[in-house]
């Protein structure tokens, strides 16, 4: 799994308010989306964590080798999502 320095917006407990900030459901406080995630971090389904996602030389990457895709798209509703590395629940 391409888990490089996860931040709040990569976490499944993060609720996006806007492009700058969100809310943590666990701690019930507001957070900056780009701030480093805490010790309770669990990844939200995103393309970058999916087996079907492949980075390409230039952005964006691809999904299953045939569709354009981008790493930070939330894939919670994608029926084809599969964890590249299943997170420790």
């Amino acid at each position, binding site marked *: 799994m391409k888990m490089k320095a996860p931040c709040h917006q990569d976490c499944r407990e993060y609720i*996006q308010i*806007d*492009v700058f900030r969100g*809310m943590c*459901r666990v701690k019930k406080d507001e957070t900056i989306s780009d701030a480093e995630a805490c010790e309770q971090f669990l990844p939200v389904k995103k393309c970058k964590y999916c087996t079907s996602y492949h980075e390409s030389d230039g952005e*964006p990457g691809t999904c299953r080798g045939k569709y354009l895709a*981008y790493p*930070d*798209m939330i894939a919670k*509703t994608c029926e084809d999502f599969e964890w590249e590395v299943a997170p420790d629940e």
Partner: protein
Amino acid sequence: MPDGIPSHQENPVNSAHYYKHKPGPAVGREVAKEPTMRAGTLRDLYLGSKSSVSMEFPYWYTRRWMELEGEIPIIRRAEALKSAFSHLTPVIFPRELLVMRRTCYLRGSYPMPWLSELFLLDKEDELYREALEAGQFSNDQVTKMGTGGGNVTKSSGNVVSIAGKFGMRREELPILMALVRKWEHQSVEDIGHKYEMLVPDYPQKESIMRSLICLFDSGFTLPQGREVINYYYPLRYGIDGIITWCKGKIAEVAGHPGMDRLYFYQASCIALEGIKKWILNYAQEARELAEKERDEELRREYTEIAETLTWISSHPPRSFREALQLCWTFHIAVLNEDCISGLSPGRLGQVLYPWWKQDMDNGTITRESTIELLECMRLKFTELDCFASTGVIGGVLSSNTFNNLCLGGLDKNGANAENELEMLILESAMTCSTPQPTLTLLYDEKLPEEFLLKGIECTKTGTGYPAWVNNRVAMEFIQNNYGPEGMTPQEARAWAIGGCLETSAGNWMPLRLGAHTYYLPGGAGAATSVGVHFIGLPKLLEVMLFDGMDMRTGQRIFPPRKKPIETYDDLMDTFQDHFRKTVDILCRCNNIQHDAWRKITPPVINSVLKPDCLTKGKHIGEMGSRYNTTFNVEVSGGINLVNSLASIKKNIFEEKNFTLDDLRSVLLNNFGYHTAEETGSYSLSDQKKRPDASTYARVHTLCHDAPKYGNDDPYVDSILADWEDWFCTVCHEFVSLYEKPLYACQISVSTHGPMGAVTLAGPDGRLEGTAYADASLSAYPGTDRNGPYALCNSATCWDHAKSQNSQLNVKIHPSVIKGREGARKFLEFIRAYMRRGGFHIQFNVVDSKVLREAQIHPEHYRGLMVRVAGFTQYWVELGKPIQDEIIARTEYEEIP
């Protein structure tokens, strides 16, 4: 006295009349109420949030669209919509009662590159430069966005600013640009442009757009909206019921002539399945939240949300809350389908009344819990953003989305239609004051005094709503306009305002609930305010005065006259000729754009809702709506035109105080003042003189002293009456895409700012670059000197039923309408205007000193709202030209 305001000694113009503001400390508004704790918390969350762009919807839409190349267009469109809705990430905030939003962000929106993509391109891109040359971005170049509130005006860190308003995550930029490239040469904008260039005199259209005589194109900017939605079918049959009905129709029409019906019904089923999935994704999210939540109350709320959504994903609602949730879901479903401003919920209190009454009767709801739900509804509507170019979102819309909720009026049988739920809607609009939905009270003599006084109480809060609109005048317009399509007097009663002030056709639909049969009002017409989008009348007059030249850009717009203008009639003939040519070319080009729109991105979801699309088997673009005479000609700056004509007539042709050449010279020299752009002030106040100002002082004074509209002066009022008579008639000469005549539309929205910015000084004394008078019947700031009743007399010198609307903004000092006596006096004033045939009047109840202070210290005024034209907006999100114009408006200190 601020520098630049002429003193009494230097200039005979009495400035005290012009910028008179009550002395002493700033006075607050008399009525101020607080929201419930839940709504207060959610409103704080909103006030701290920024406009944010998500690429989810466009990504999934485009991905599915590209997969289906060669498919029947409406099926391809429906499949793309289904995919996009099915994949939206559900986000529910703690304490929300009503849920679902357009994107994963609180204040989210997204680009629709299938409609318009050129403004998103890099400015060095060849296609961008071509569009620039064609005048498509002229408006963007002169628009000044508001710099505060939720606007993301600058890029910073990992956030990129788009159109000076929207924030986008930098990591989403590559996919945006990739999608934009995919839509090049395929979007409505590009296809429409390709074919509009075949119109024989197309180059003239480009020069008109470059000069900003016309503000923006229609077919690819805001192709739907300024209409009233109709929630009836989902409320009556539920989503499964509509799908079942459509499947029955598919079996009925398949293989028979008129095959487009087959595709429309099939597309309807596909799109509805996407909406079902979207709702169920939210229900699943709510269930998961309930499972994880440790707070018992929150867990119960998430469970209720899940149950509500699961039920309405298939069935008609059983309760007021379910009905409200279902209405909201379809409202944003339509908004997600197209780039729309002004999708109005219409008479929502009358639509939802049956469920509310039932719940009240069986004791499952209280007035207090109703208020709380209605406050939550206000916050949902306030979340709405419309993604568009700078010129459209800032220059026209001032970031507003114009979801207008109407109250009062008459019912199907001609009785007073007001109900108890509408009283609670008014109350919730006071306790939880937010810009959306704005309220309009459909004034009728049959409405009870208690209801009208509730409206007055709400107006006193200073939120700018409700607007007061004349029910009888609107019905007359509706019946005249839609009579040839079968409009009856009974159906005319179902009208409501779509958008900020667009009188829109409706109909009545029967609903049986319990032992009662109700007739629900809802929208029955296609989008209005499509066609010719805002002709700046003072700009057109300026170009005419300079013999067809736009002196700002140095380009020729119209061929030169063959002989000089020698009489006032000569001048009017030339002006009218230019006006006709302008509307003619714009109408034909916009018809082509709209044709591209209906072929490439046919409206599916709105068509499912709008009578009689389902029964006809036709979408809105095929005239499936019951009423289709909805294209219009919008104008801005009418009062500056009328004042200018009065000045020219009197000074040049009657009293011969100066010549046309003299006038041209002073206009080019801005009466010896610096321009608005140079001073950074966009109203007539706070302007600065140049050293040579005295050279032009005489003519300037004569221009100022010419008769001005708003003073009950027959000289200038007769010019207004003649203009209105001609304008409202000439619009019928032009024909829409649907082979129906166009009609007159007279609102300003925010166009008086950017259109003023490109207009030289005017014969009425207005200075270069300053905003026009707002609305269509508001006096030019400071020129109405004889009190509010004189203003009303001037405004009603013509028949308002000939136009889709007229618009009058009045600014009143809070002290004028204080107490019960003040309220009654205020109501009598409104009533007098309505009885004289006035169509619309609305109020800013505010002390101008507060506005000036808010301009200096916006950080202290995040929640301050003002009425602009047909809408209320947060002060800090308005561009400076509009702020300056509102401050400069005459502030009435007395209602006799």
